[in-house]
């Protein structure tokens, strides 16, 4: 299975600012997924990012708030824009290579 390096692992940000989360995969993958998770709870899919096309966002998530880049088959970024305390959560990237592999997550706290 693939190995994903996700960073930062955690950050504390001021409201109104933006944070960009990066995921680097050790192999080329077509599909990459971005999730949000409250600690101890289930995962909510934010968007699916395929290289060479616009990301597909799930209901309740919009590109202006969560812009995603997918410049090549091994890398993607998710930006959380104009943050508010409600954006405090764990953000995870995932790839499909046989099974699903996840990054270790980014714990974001907005103050």
């Amino acid at each position, binding site marked *: 299975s693939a190995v994903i390096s996700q960073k930062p692992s955690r950050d504390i940000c001021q409201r109104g600012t933006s944070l960009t989360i990066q995921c680097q995969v050790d192999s080329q993958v077509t599909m990459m997924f971005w999730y949000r998770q409250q*600690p*101890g*709870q*289930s*995962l909510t899919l934010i968007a699916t990012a395929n290289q060479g096309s616009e990301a597909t966002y799930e209901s309740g998530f919009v590109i202006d708030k969560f812009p995603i880049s997918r410049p090549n088959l091994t890398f993607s970024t998710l930006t959380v824009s104009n943050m508010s305390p409600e954006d405090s959560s764990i953000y*995870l990237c995932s790839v499909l290579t046989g*099974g*699903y592999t*996840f990054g270790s997550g980014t714990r974001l706290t907005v103050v």
Partner: protein
Amino acid sequence: TQLLEQSPQFLSIQEGENLTVYCNSSSVFSSLQWYRQEPGEGPVLLVTVVTGGEVKKLKRLTFQFGDARKDSSLHITAAQPGDTGLYLCAGERDSNYQLIWGAGTKLIIKP
């Protein structure tokens, strides 16, 4: 919206006891996956079941897929403190690669 109901949501038991976690749905899945997640990490895939009635064993963990491929269970025998974590089930449909997630079971095994 397809739902995958996972129960119990929280379980705290003594070392050596047995336990079962359930995931139920009214929808048919092409596969059902079980993950375990520890604090500060992303979910790690434990097993994927794809055939109705399938049973897979992973040491003290037994996974079963219902005959109709709508439900699944995870049974842990002689639980150990190292089994502590958040267990998540996720169902995959044929139509796309997106996963339908259960709510998660927070499991604590007390020594």
